């Protein structure tokens, strides 16, 4: 009862409504100690990744331009960018998340070899760019060209899968706040990612987290950046619409 009251309070603070379902940030499910650590820059190690990303952002490749040469005024150019990803790339019609957009920029505009998903560099850059939108509300486009991707993500979220025959929704919709071993089941909002997980001893992407979910229900683990996870990421982002970006967050 007390937990329900506490959760209710938190939901009232940072609640987002998606299809009548109230969504709260993953931070609401942390212990007070971990939450305190997350909010204290002298204690949250994820800021090292932000710092590294900032350094990469202004580093000039041997040939070509540094990110910062085009995106000079961050306040104008990239603040808020992360709230709109994943989004459909107009030119190719593909769904791109923030990692995908940074890689596309690197390959097509900077003419550099791709970093690779989950590489230290791409994680650092993604964490840095997402951190520029800290506190801004998630606001992805889910209609128009994005609609088929959103619908696919929703279907993925609701479909039973794996040897445990569980859908994402059964836990992250129906059993939120309950315990799974030492963990508390959250709504599955990805608004803190890339995040520092104690489990990882470092920062990882949302897709790394999703791969752990797939493993947890003994289902197929898709590759980093796979269309299945991209669509799911869009659905989760749409569902978490209105919640502030918390990157770099800490999670269990």
């Amino acid at each position, binding site marked *: 009862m007390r937990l329900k009251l506490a959760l209710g309070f938190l939901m009232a603070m940072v609640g987002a409504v998606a299809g009548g379902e109230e969504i709260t940030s993953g931070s609401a499910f942390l212990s007070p100690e971990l939450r305190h650590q997350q909010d204290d820059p002298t204690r949250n190690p994820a800021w090292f990744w932000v710092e590294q990303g900032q350094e990469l952002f202004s580093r000039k490749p041997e040939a070509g331009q540094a990110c910062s040469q085009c995106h000079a005024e961050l306040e104008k150019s990239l603040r808020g960018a992360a709230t709109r990803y994943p989004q459909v790339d107009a030119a190719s019609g593909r769904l791109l998340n923030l990692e995908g957009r940074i890689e596309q920029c690197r390959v097509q505009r900077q003419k550099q070899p791709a970093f690779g998903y989950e590489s230290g560099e791409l994680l650092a850059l993604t964490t840095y760019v997402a951190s520029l939108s800290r506190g801004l509300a998630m606001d992805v486009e889910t209609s128009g060209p994005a609609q088929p991707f959103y619908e696919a993500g929703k279907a993925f979220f609701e479909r039973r899968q794996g040897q445990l025959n569980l859908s994402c929704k059964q836990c992250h919709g129906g059993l939120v706040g309950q315990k799974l071993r*030492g963990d508390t089941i959250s709504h599955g909002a990805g608004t803190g990612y890339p995040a520092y997980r104690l489990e990882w001893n470092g920062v990882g992407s949302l897709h790394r987290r999703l791969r752990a979910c797939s*493993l947890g229900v003994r289902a197929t683990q898709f590759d980093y950046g796979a269309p299945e996870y991209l669509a799911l990421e869009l659905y989760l982002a749409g569902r978490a619409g209105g919640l502030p970006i918390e990157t770099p967050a800490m999670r269990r």
Partner: protein
Amino acid sequence: MSLPISPLSRPSEPAPSRRDIVVGTGVGLGLAALPSSALAATLPALPELIARLTEGAVPERGRITLEIPALVENGNSVDARIVVESPMTEADHVRWIHLIAEKNPFLDMARFHLGPRSGRAEVATTLRLATSQKVTAVAALSTGGYLMSDVDVVVTLSACIDGG
């Protein structure tokens, strides 16, 4: 500042040869066949671990506080804070504070060396706990005595383990 460290806490040796592994496996099988009490006897008990640090002296309880959560969500990073009541003067100060985890693969976790210029005997760090166990802090005083405090910590099992 010399430090008697458990042989268990030495840096890892170079990779064993194939012969070592074969011989070691034999020993391992032999151990596995022993009753569990005999196996337990091969690991030093906590009082012995403490005596190793205090040159045999039995530390007093009190005047030292070990703050560590009784219930830990993830053993990979556990906040620990140790405060010793001490004037921290030239004549009377804490020389060091040592942390032991009796069930970690390596029992010694950390040793803080302090002195009169510390001002206060108040330190903190983040620890790695392999499993639920007793965590012990031992402080050595410049006046010759030792203080200790211990806390039983439960490390919960995570459901959301990472498979890459």
